[in-house]
């Protein structure tokens, strides 16, 4: 079996095993797995409305996945997507609410840009600390997640005079699309999916077609060699976190300008940022892989909402399945060993 095939087989086998474990759990807890998964399927593909909502859910997942994957290519683990997303969400919503008489072709890009800048700034801090002071980015980004949560909550209360919601954004900043809504039986599908797909291309272009991308990847492979080759390692680490943060900020813009059209005080995290880790992992940190990963996990998460109604199965079963898939992909070393064993046996015959 070729290495390339195994690289694709490991995530594929992990997904199958994850779903299988999910079925076993349903079986042992007295739920009907076939009914459960049928409800999941209907939740994703049941009608044109469900499909529209599924694509809407996939949109921020793509961007969150890119935010993890991009940093990972420079050897950085960005657990801070959640925080970068939240500040992006607030920034976009605030720009959406604060300006009321701008034309759409200025207002919308401004709001999107604000989200990207806010996310980028939230990524810049751990990047700077990593580059200049060698502070591990995992811990800093986790801490930044909580700081983001509390600071944005306070800001939302501040701008809304003590309320818990910024109020609805101006129509001129909305990503909402009557055309896409009409196409999907009035789901909340919005133009954000185009931005997400454009960013997939941007990530591919930066990494594969530019000198900067080459340097970013080189730093990810070997910092010392990159330094020796005359690259500025600090600059590349910071840049990587800034770009990753911008992707995550855009994921927040999807929620602020597309799905919800406001920002509200949150009691906890959205979960999109953490699922982004799963997305990037499944997609092997490549732009196209992220699209596949986001499609799978976004669809599963949205489809799971149908499971309690149709089959009586708690939605959490899907989070269990996703976590188990992560375990299998992360333990790829063992799976790889197993797959190689099978293939060498076949070749021996």
């Amino acid at each position, binding site marked *: 079996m070729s290495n390339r095939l195994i690289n694709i087989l490991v995530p594929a086998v992990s997904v199958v095993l994850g779903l299988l474990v999910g079925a076993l759990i349903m079986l042992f807890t007295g739920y009907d797995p076939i009914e459960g998964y049928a409800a999941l399927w209907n939740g994703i593909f049941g009608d044109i409305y469900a499909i529209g909502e599924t694509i809407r859910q996939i949109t921020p997942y793509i961007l969150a996945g890119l935010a993890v994957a991009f940093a990972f290519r420079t050897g950085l683990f960005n657990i801070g997507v959640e925080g970068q997303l939240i500040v992006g969400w607030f920034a976009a919503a605030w720009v959406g609410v604060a300006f009321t008489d701008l034309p759409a072709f200025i207002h919308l890009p401004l709001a999107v840009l604000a989200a990207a800048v806010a996310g980028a700034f939230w990524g810049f801090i751990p990047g700077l600390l990593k580059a200049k002071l060698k502070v591990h980015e995992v811990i800093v980004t986790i801490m930044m997640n909580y700081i983001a949560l509390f600071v944005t909550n306070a800001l939302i209360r501040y701008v809304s005079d003590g309320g818990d919601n910024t109020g609805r954004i101006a129509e001129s900043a909305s990503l909402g699309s009557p055309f896409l809504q009409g196409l999907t039986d009035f789901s909340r599908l919005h133009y954000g999916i185009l931005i997400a797909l454009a960013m997939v291309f941007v990530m591919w272009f930066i990494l594969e077609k530019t000198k900067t991308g080459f340097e970013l990847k080189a730093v990810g492979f070997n910092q010392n060699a990159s330094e020796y080759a005359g690259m500025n390692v600090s600059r590349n680490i910071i840049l990587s976190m800034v770009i990753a943060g911008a992707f995550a900020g855009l994921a927040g813009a999807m929620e602020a300008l597309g799905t919800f059209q406001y920002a509200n005080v949150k*009691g*906890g995290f959205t979960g999109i940022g953490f699922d982004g880790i799963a997305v990037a992992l499944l997609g092997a940190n490549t732009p196209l892989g992220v699209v596949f990963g986001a499609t799978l996990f976004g669809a599963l998460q949205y489809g799971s909402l149908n499971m309690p109604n149709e089959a009586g199965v708690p939605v959490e079963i899907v989070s269990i399945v996703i976590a188990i898939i992560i*375990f299998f992909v992360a333990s790829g070393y063992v799976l790889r060993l197993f797959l190689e064993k099978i293939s060498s046996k076949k070749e021996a015959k």
Partner: protein
Amino acid sequence: MGAFLEALYFIVPVSIAYAAPLIFVAIGGVFSEKSGVINIGLEGLMVMGAFVGIVFNLTFADQLGGSTIWFSLLAAMVVSGIFSLLHAVASISFRADQTISGVAINMLGVAIALFAVKLIYDKGQTDYVSEQFIRFDIPVLSDIPFIGPMFFSDVYSTSILAIAVAILAWFVIYKTPFGLRLRAVGEHPMAADTMGVKVNRMRYIAVVLSGMLAGIGGAAYAQSISYEFSHSTINGQGFMALAAMIFGKWHPLGAMGAALFFGLAQSLKIVGGSIDFIDQVPTVYLDILPYVLTILALAGFIGKASAPKAIGQPYIKGKR
């Protein structure tokens, strides 16, 4: 001065109560990370502990009466210990990225707990437990002027246990052969292996210890502060414990000190409104204080916090 003292007598016991669960979990983190295994999964392990503690309490309160709370701690310890094996197997034997495995533990902990709550109770949160940890005044000691009302009144037994665990952990890690091996495995596993220490076995023990302590911490929190279990019961306490471990520089007593300090920040947020001056401080500053301080500590502005050297790397025999 009188009013200030009154405020102190009020705040200090509450702070210690909030700190106790953090201490358990942070000490758990110290064990795992001293052995070289990153444990981001503390949050998930703590959630599992809180869930098991509450369910056990609700189920057996009628039979066990007053001792229910202690058996609940025990049950939470056992289940979270077993749950942490998943992290151990993935990150030690299967050489998975320890951070990713920890993320999966967090996701899985919350998901399993909520799935089970819905399965058992057919709703998203449990009822309140009738058997709870209650505060008491320690006889004689609480009569000492000044110190008495501050440290020995309105005490939870979990607080005493937490401080005892921290001191015990310090003794085990720094004064026993086991502790020496634990630290050796986290600093230089190859050297430890050469001296006959079983690296992976030590790491398994450390990770399971962290799971057990996180389980106790979760059950202690659930039975002394929240009294029920829902999706928002733990809500970041595990990550705050992780922060305490780092702010305490991977030292058991340091972690305890940091946890006490973070407990103070949390209690000020809750009771601060009734105290002059503190009610002027917007709560957001108290909210973010633990996290900002941890970043500053890591950046070296508050002494240098440095992790065990071999942290995050699976040990592969024979590989240089």
